[in-house]
Structures are given as structure tokens and as C-alpha cells.
């Protein structure tokens, strides 16, 4: 029988013992209890759905926008997810790599927030108010039209051409916006008025 620790030999063991006890102080036995299995909470719960169509190519896939907040209730709506609309006859809920990432197009860091103005020769854009921008643009256009408008040709036939200002129309605006734009451009006599169709 040899496990008879005399006081002296116990002290000799102290070194090792100390280690053990100080480890105990580190929280021995308090190993964290494992979290029970769970899947991520469904992130679309309590969001608002809005039917829309993809703005990219001409397949015009149906999409559903999921937002926190409801515009129809006059709330501000923050878009948290966009996904294909399974009820849509063409895409049946599918989307391409562009469409599937629409949320990050809407939320891209380079989305424009404010009207900006670049002075001639300047190396930067500066904030400008909408009112000032509209006043200035309208004035520039009016003055140029009055200065360069071609009312009639040599034969005296009224031709009503304004060739010194041109306009490109968007290719992703709605038909309604396009109609308003059309009325604007054609009534001013802008003949250099075209769109992406040709390109």
C-alpha cells in the first residue's frame, strides 16, 4: 500500500495540484450546453408582397417584391427580398442570375439619391436642389430652342425642327412614362429623339 501522502510529499505535489485547481477556476464543468437544432427563421414572415415585373430583358418575368412596410397604407416600404412569381405564365417563378439578384440592383450603393450638378471644367459633382435644377434646365432649353429652331425650309414649308438639342428615351421606363416623354419631346420639335431600339 503506497498511497500514503505524508504532509511533506503532499507539499511536493502542490505544484501539480495548483495547476488542477486553477484550471477548475477557469470554469471546469461549465461546458456550454449545445443549442438545440433549429433552422433559420423564415425571413419573409409579416412582409408585404407586391407584384412587379423584372426590368431587365424583354421576357418580362413576373416577380414578387417583399417589403417591410406597405406603400398602400401610406407607410414607407423597405424592400428586403425579391423572388420570381410562380403564378406568372412565362417564368413560372424562375429568374435568371440578374433577376434573382434584383434586390441588390434596387439597393446598389451606386443608386442615385440626390440631384447633382457639375459646373463647366469642374472635377466634381455638387448637390443641387430639384427646383434650381428644373429652373436652370428649362431656361437652357428655352433659350437654345428660341435661338436655333428651324421654323420653315427654303421653300417656306413649315418644318418645325429643333436639331441642336437631342434626347434619348429610356428602354426600361413604363409605357405611360414613355407616352409623357413622347409628348414632351415631339411637341418641342426635338427631331434627334431616339431610343435603345436602334442600338
Amino acid at each position, binding site marked *: 500500500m503506497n498511497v500514503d501522502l505524508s504532509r511533506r510529499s503532499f507539499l511536493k505535489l502542490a505544484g501539480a495540484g495548483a495547476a488542477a485547481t486553477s484550471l477548475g477556476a477557469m470554469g471546469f464543468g461549465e461546458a456550454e450546453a449545445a443549442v438545440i437544432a433549429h433552422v433559420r427563421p423564415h425571413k419573409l414572415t409579416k412582409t408585404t408582397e*407586391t*407584384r412587379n*415585373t*423584372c*426590368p*431587365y*430583358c424583354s*421576357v*418580362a418575368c413576373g416577380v414578387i417584391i417583399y417589403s417591410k412596410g406597405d406603400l398602400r397604407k401610406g407607410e414607407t416600404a*423597405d424592400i428586403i427580398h425579391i423572388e420570381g412569381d410562380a403564378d406568372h*405564365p412565362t417564368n413560372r417563378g424562375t*429568374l*435568371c*442570375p*440578374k*433577376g434573382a439578384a*434584383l434586390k*441588390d440592383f434596387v439597393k*446598389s450603393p*451606386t*443608386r*442615385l*439619391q440626390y*440631384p447633382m*450638378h*457639375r459646373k*463647366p471644367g469642374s472635377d466634381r*459633382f455638387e448637390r443641387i436642389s*430639384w427646383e434650381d*435644377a428644373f429652373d*436652370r434646365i428649362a431656361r*437652357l*432649353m*428655352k433659350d*437654345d430652342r428660341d435661338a436655333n*429652331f428651324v421654323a420653315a425650309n427654303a421653300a417656306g*414649308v413649315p*418644318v*418645325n*425642327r429643333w*436639331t441642336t438639342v*437631342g434626347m434619348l*428615351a*429610356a*428602354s*426600361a*421606363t413604363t*409605357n*405611360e*412614362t414613355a407616352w409623357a*416623354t413622347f409628348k414632351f419631346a415631339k*411637341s*418641342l*420639335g426635338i*427631331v*434627334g429623339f*431616339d*431610343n435603345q431600339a*436602334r*442600338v
Partner: protein
Amino acid sequence: MTNSWTDIKNTDLVVVMGGNAAEAHPCGFKWVTEAKATRGAKLIVVDPRYTRTASVSDYYAPIRQGTDIAFLNGVMKYCIDNDKVQWEYMKAFTNASYMVKDGFGYQDGLFTGYDAEKRDYDKSTWDYVLGDDGFVVTDPTLQHPRCVWNLLKAHLAPYTPEMVERICGTPKDKFLKVAEMISECSSPTKTMTSMYALGWTQHSSGSQNIRAMAMLQLILGNIGVRGGGMNALRGHSNIQGLTDLGLMSHLLTGYLTMPTEKDVDFTTYMSTRQFKPLRPGQTSYWQNYRKFMVSFQKAMWGDAARIDNDWGFNYLSKLDVPAYDVLRVFELMYAGKVNGYICQGFNPLLAFPNRDKNTKALSNLKWLVTMDPLDTETARFWENHGDFNPVDTASIQTEVFQLPTTCFAEEEGSLTNSGRWLQWHWAGGTPPGEAKHDTYIIAQIFLRMKEMYQNEGGAFPDPILNLSWDYADPNEPTPEELAKEINGRALTDLMDPADPMKVQVAAGKQILNFSQLRDDGSTMCGCWIYSGNFNEQGNNMARRDNNDPDDTGAYLGWSFAWPLNRRTLYNRASADLQGKPWDPSRKLLEWDGTKWTGYDVPDIAPTAKPDEIGPFIMNQEGTARLFSRGLMRDGPFPAHMEPFESPVANVFNPKMRGNPVSRVFQTDVAQMGLSDEFPYAATSYRLTEHFHYWTKHNRVNSALQPEFFVEISEELAEEKNIENGGWVRVWSKRGSVKAKAVVTKRIRPLMCDGKPVHVVGIPLHWGFTGSAKKGLGPNSLAPFVGDANIETPEYKAFLVNIEPSTAPEEATV
């Protein structure tokens, strides 16, 4: 598209040529894989590159870019030589039997009447022989040497498989395999669909590429039937809509055309547009032109458009040139003749060819306004970004306004898809910062100008002061108000033509559709082909009934398709002369003895007898045109033309360069490269991971395809010792770009006219703003020349040189 996306599932053979549907329109391409999986349909891809569409094809054949006409003419010849023609269809529904004037001919790659000085044809001989009755003389037996059919056969004679291989570089056996597969679709019970896009349009002979396939489809009897048709896959979500609504220099809404200086008054204008039938009893629907035009003028100027002022005809501009298309405008800008420019959701700095010229042109502007949701390169064209935008900022005196607009998610309204569906969508998010709707911005500028003209007067203010702008809130017209204007309404009570006592439409009510339009000023309609989109039944564009009786893919209850909710154009041609469907299993319409019935809205008067009235009611002939008379500038038949920058000479006429009638500006002539200096055939394209210059602003898409690259064959890489993933410099007569090299088996050199032609592929998605790595694109290299008929730039075929290089440099700021 003559048909719809969902109709593609009905096809037996899909030919993707001049496009890359799987990459550019993946969710539409779904219907190709559907047809393959459920009908055992086959897919053929003909392309200079083995694309992702080719990766799921049943047969792939390579072709040199810009030689599609030769290939398609070869296929037509093969079909005719091998009796693979849907004779009954072709004889009855095309102008094959029509006699052509004696003067017409073709020699050395040119048709009769060419004037090298004017770079134009005298087209007087390109027409039919008319009888005393004013109708075209025909030979239904197709025996007469001067009938269209025999002239066509003669025209196609040179396009043998050997000639096709010589021009296109497509190995004879591969060409024959494709021709054989296509020819099978001449059976009335087999049909083929053509899916094409900018791979055909972006050529100096783009319109003729499409004509060639359209003619082939007519010979095979595939137009107007389920699973057939000519399907142009439009690039942008509403480019179809903007074209339909006439936001183009030469157009008004609904394909009404802008007056030219020749149209001195309304009567003269109408005289060249109200086409009379060229065959007895034919519809020639454009006889209604005046109704549409007057109603349009009323929509524009309301009470100010009166019969005594030619319905305000003089408010419209009159063109002195065919069109002030974008190339012409930038040419003028380059010459310092344009002072101001407005870019609404458009990025011309990257979108138009010859970037260096674009930059100089924009720098000549006094002011530029951009309206966009994103921070575009065009808005910052003046900002120095080293090799990515090497400009001298201080010397650019252009004043720039960058106006933030909303995007699709924050606005309401309709978009017209490639299948002509007008689909309404709703706003789902709050616009960021101070972003505004385009309509608000347009209204604000317009109302300010109007006020100035009221107070100060000025140059011809009438069209501005009289423009109808009667919206509840003039500062921001609502989408509904505008949509109703497009549909049109009765201005006075409209009496029923059948019963003059009965009011058909009460004053102020929305008209049902364009069939109710009048030319006496009693109706207004913004865009006749859209009429029916928002009538008294409500907003038909917002309909969401996705039922599809008998799974035809028509979905008549879903949204609204122009015209008149018709889903397949020329659908009467799906039935024979007795009105029975060519293929009972693919019935669209059927004549029940008194009227047309079926799954779609008939593209003909419902009571028009099948054996009397032709299916192509928009044509004076009532038939489709294998011979297009003088309606196309570069010939009534498609003839092989080389690109302006080609590695080989035109085998029909070595001296002929590009399209003989394409417009070439003097400043650009000097900037055309030759194959000795620039030996490689470049082409540009989109990648499925990106959408133009938008998605490089998106972190997700930027991660999927982060950096600008060019694709070359292993053979060329070895020749130039270019390593995969290494930097290369690619340059043309107009500019130079640096890019990563992707060396691939998917591009192989082609043997054309005895010499190997190396293809260099250049995708177009990079710029100097956004999340992706900065890069350049094909527009730094492409030539400033367009298609002879519509001026679409020749982006798909030009010459470059290439060498190993080093990384481009950022701006040192």
C-alpha cells in the same frame, strides 16, 4: 416576336442564329428546354462561338460573323432543290406568283439602279407588273420566268453548300446537316421557330439577315402557326413599348411615320400612306391610317387639332433626312452642332460605337442632363479614370445635371415584353433619397418651359402651349391617366355605323379598341395599336388570369397583348385555304363556315372568307413578300454583303465594301481598318451573368462575372503566345482596350475563302462606375456605321488586332 414566349413550347425545331437566347433570355429559353423535354424538339445553334445555348443544343454549326445571309440563302436553296417547300402555303400566302418588272436584275453583288455617288439605288424597277385594273399580274402556275418564285430561285442559285463553306467557314457537312434538319419543317405538321436578337440586327446588313430567315419560314409555312414564327428577342424590358409608342426619330405612335419635307400638307402626307389593295378584295389595313392619325393628333393637341388646321399637322416636325438617329445626332454633336442633350435611363458613352468619338462629342455639349437610377459613365464622362476614361477634365466645359430617378420597384405602370404583352406592375418600395419618377421630372421641365413661352413668347410656341396636359395633377400625371390617354376615348357621342340611331360610345367614355376610331376628330387615341389596353372594362394590362385552355400557351386572360389582345400575329395562316388547321394537333384558328373560331383573337376580319382574303392584312397584297419591292434600301432579295470591316473580300464583288447603301459619314471613312493591319474578326456580346451596364452596379452579379475579358481560340493564343487569364491589348482603327484573356475551345478558327479566320469575342458589361472591377468594352473598338435600313451599329463584325499586354492603369488622383 410574331408569337409569344410561352408559345415556343409548341415547336419541333428551334433555330438560334443571330442570338444567344440561353444567355440573354434564360427564362424565355425555358420554353425551348420545355419543348425539348415534352415534344422531343431539337435545338440548332449557328454561331461563331460555342455559347451556353450551344451547350444544350442538339446540333451546333460555327459561322463567321456577318455571313448569315449566305448561310440562310443556302438553306433556302437546299429546301427548294430538295422539294422541301410547303407548296400550298407558299403559293397561297406569299407573293411568289407575282410578276416583276423587266428592268429588275442582280449582278456582281448589286441590284439594278445602283448609284455609287449617292450610295443609293434607284428602286423604280424593283416592283410588280400592274394590270389595267391596278392589280398585280400573277402566274399561279409559277412557270413565268419573271414571277417572284423564279427570280428568287435564280437569285439563290450561287449559294451552293460549297459557296456557303467558302463564305461562312461552316464545314459543308455541318451546313448540310443543319439544312436537312430545317428542311424537315416544310411538313405542315412540323414547325420551326427562329429565335434571334442583336446577333442579326447589329450588322450593316442586319435587316436583310432577318428577311432571309423570314423568307425561309414562309417557304416552310411556319409563319402564323403555333411553335413557329420570327421571334425577335428584344433586349430591354420595354424597348418594344418605346418602339410601339414611337419614341424614335422617324416614328410617331403605332408605327405611324413622321412627316418629311415632301409632306407639305396633311393631304400629301396621307396620300403616300393609305395603301390601296394590290389584289382584289384584300384588306390592306393601312387604309385606316387616317383614323389613327387624326385620333393621334387629337390626343396630342386636343381642341387645337381641328380639321381647319389639318388636325395640327404643322405642329409636327418634318424631317429633311430619313432620321435623326443616334448615330447622326452624335455625328452632329461631334461636329459641334448640338448644344444640349438629355439622356433618360441610357448610357451612350458605353452604348454607342467608337467611344473616343462619343467622348469628344459629349465634350462639345454646352449642357447634358441625365435621368437615371444609377450613377452612369455618361453622367461622369468628364471624370478622369486613367486608362478607363482618359479625359482632360478641366478642358471639358459641359455643364452636367445628374437627376436621380426611381426604378421599376418604386413605380407603377406597364411594360411591353417581346411577345407584345403589356403587363402592369405596382410599386413595392420607397424611392431612395430624393429620387423622383420620370413623369414628374418631365412634367416639371415641360411646365416651366410652357410658362416661359406664355410669358416671354418665343420660337413657334403653339405645339407647346396647346399640348394636351389635362391631368388631375399637372405636376405628375398618374400612370392610369396616361394609360387611358393611350387607349383613347370618344370626344363626342359615337353613333353605331350599323345603326345610326344607336350610341356606340358616349362622349368622354373610353373606346373599346381602335376599331372604333374615327377620322373626323370625334375620337382621340395616343397609340392605336395599344388601344384596348385600358377601356371601360378597366385596366386590361393588369389582368392576371393564368388559365390556358388546352395548354396552347396563349393565356388570353393574362395582361393585354397588342393588337386587340392577339397572341400570335398572322394566325389566320395557321389554317389552309378551306380554313382547316394545317396541323390539327396545333390548331389556333378554324373557319366554322361563317366565322373564325379558336384559341386566339383572329388576325383577320372574323368573317373574312378563308379562300378570299389573305392572312397578311397589313400588306396591300394580303400576302407575305418574298420579294419586298422597293421597301428596303438594299434590295428586294437578301444578298450576301460583307461587313464594312471584313477579313475577306466579298466573293461576288471584291471591290464592294460592306453594305453598298449604308450611310457612312466622311469623318468615319478614315477610321475603317483593313485586314492586313487588323487581321482578326471581332464580335461583341452579352454574358448571362450581366445586363448591359446595370448589373455591374450589383454586388451579386459583379461577384459572378467580376472582370472584363476577351475570348480567343487556343490556336490564336498559341500563335500570339497569350496565356489564359493573362492580360492582352486589343485594338482597332478606333481605339484600344486592355482585358483578361479567356483562352477557350469554344472558339475555333474558321477556314474562309481558303484562309483561316480567327474570332475575338468581346463581352460588353464593364465600365468605370459600380461594384465590378473597372474595365472597358467593345464600343471603344466598334465602327461608327449602321444598317442601311435602320442604322443599327455594326457591333457584331469588325476587325481588331491583339497582343499580350499588362494591366491597365487607374487614374493617378
